[in-house]
């Protein structure tokens, strides 16, 4: 019998702790597949964040260095400058990247640090139990916006990928989702491309992943996937936001 599907080598044989229907486990797999396909597991270092993915080092069979909350891009900068021939990626959630780590992310992109950022946007603080994130949608309820987020009191959802795309140092920014087979395939291609850009020393690349969080959204996994399509992508449209290479 021919084996046509198996666990990527870069994922350890360890069951994920993530909730049913969570987008983290899918994204972990895509990253591992991309690393395997590019043959870079020996020289890739991942930087997990504070948040649900904080123990990502239990799953990835590559070297990993945990960053303090929000500082992934600063830690990645330090590593990459010392080890310019290694592939360095930071894995960060919406609160980590677009709230407490705003400055570190913005300036790493502006310096054109040759690193890759995987930005997991699930519109909520997951690990701490469902508080409002910078990307929480208007009207969306959370434990800190019980009646729903209002622009007047809580501000608007932050479109951080679009902000980063305005910076000259950012060469590739794309928003993807992992809620359907087609979107998962596109996300995989984007992650691969981001790593390839880094391998070619092009500069800062970021892939934003709209990621379902059924637990904190208080939805069934199937409904959460539908919600990404029907609601979340209306605020955060999928697609390439910036690709300097594509423009020639």
């Amino acid at each position, binding site marked *: 019998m021919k084996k046509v599907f198996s666990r990527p080598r870069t994922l350890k044989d360890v069951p994920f702790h993530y909730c049913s229907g969570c987008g983290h486990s899918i994204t972990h797999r895509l990253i591992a597949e991309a690393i395997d396909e590019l043959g870079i597991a020996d020289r890739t270092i991942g930087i997990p964040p504070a948040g649900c993915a904080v*123990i990502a080092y239990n799953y990835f069979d590559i070297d*990993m*260095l945990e960053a303090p909350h929000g500082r992934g891009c600063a830690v990645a900068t330090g590593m990459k*400058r010392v080890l310019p021939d290694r592939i360095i990626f930071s894995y960060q959630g919406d609160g980590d990247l677009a709230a407490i780590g705003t400055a*570190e992310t913005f300036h790493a992109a502006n310096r054109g640090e040759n690193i890759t950022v995987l930005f997991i946007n699930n519109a909520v603080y997951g690990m701490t139990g469902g508080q409002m994130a910078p990307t929480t949608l208007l009207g969306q309820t959370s434990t800190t916006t019980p009646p729903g987020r209002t622009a007047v009191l809580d501000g608007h959802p932050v479109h951080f990928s679009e902000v980063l795309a305005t910076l000259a140092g950012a060469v590739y920014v794309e928003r993807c989702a992992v809620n359907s087979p087609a979107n998962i395939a596109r996300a995989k291609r984007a992650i691969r491309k981001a790593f390839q850009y880094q391998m070619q020393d092009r500069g800062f690349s970021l892939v934003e992943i709209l990621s379902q969080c059924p637990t904190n959204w208080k939805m069934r996994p199937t409904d959460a996937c539908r919600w990404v399509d029907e609601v979340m992508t209306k605020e955060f449209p999928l697609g390439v936001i910036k690709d300097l290479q594509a423009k020639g």
Partner: protein
Amino acid sequence: MQGNRVIGEAAIRAGCRFYAGYPITPQNELTEYMAEHMRRVKGGVFIQAESELAAINMVLGASAAGARAMTSSSSPGISLKQEGISSLAADELPAVIVNIMRGGPGLGNILPSQGDYFQATRGGGHGDYRTIVLAPASVQELADLTMDAFDLADRYRNPVLLLADGMMGQMMEPVEFRTPSPRQYREEYILRGKGTGKSRFIRALILDAIRMEEHNWKLYRKYQVIAEEEVRFETFWTDDAEILIVAYGTAARIAKGAIKRSREMGIAVGLIRPITLWPFPGEVIRRFAEEVGSFLVFEMNTGQMLEDVKLALEGRARVDFYGRPGGVIPTPAELAKVIAYQVKR
């Protein structure tokens, strides 16, 4: 050569190959020296960071990647770096952090002060940890202790603070740079990608209480070794002393001037100068109390090291204090008057 620039030169000679910093007075000459000279050495990296938080976390990444790494700042900026210093201690990563202290609290001013003693000697950030704290009192010592700081950081895989003040940073004195010893740091502590070996990780989050406790005790045992092995101090005119001043850094220089004046007036006064503020030379001070009944702690703050001296003496001798906080630089004559007053009492 100016103190701030000496620190930079000594660091580069000691093999520092990564520096990240953010502008703040009175330590800017150090950042500027690194900007100018780091790019001249092979593999040298200088980054002007967007914040102190970013700078210390860049240092964390660089240290994990195997570079001798340093950042510097002054008091308000050091407060911001505490998150990263705590993480470095938790991760058991070496790094050198320079604090050219200024008046505080808050933004304070840009004048010399020793107001950060508590912060420096009690870990500084959150959690159960310590940093080695070196307190130079001359430009020559800035050079020597900067080099030592990198060796100590590597030996104990722990952040080391060089704690000086604006006076030390700005003053100019002749200096000789010694030839540093080659770095001894094990490859197994460095993350460079797993290569053909097993993957590894460095992390500070330990959710399991028992494992977290084990990690805390492991760090504690390391700090015990440091406390045993690394205490440094200088004594000055202590042989026949009836009063002993305890002072460090700039205050110790002032104290030496005051002691000379007092000796001319026939007052038998000497100095104990802690060079390591943590570990603190408490045992040394306690031994002196067998001969000397009167101690005068002199600091450029409202009395911080004073508490360590009292803890060391445990009531064995009288302890007085003289301090000038807020960026005031007391003169030797002023301190000599205080000494004379204490003798009469």
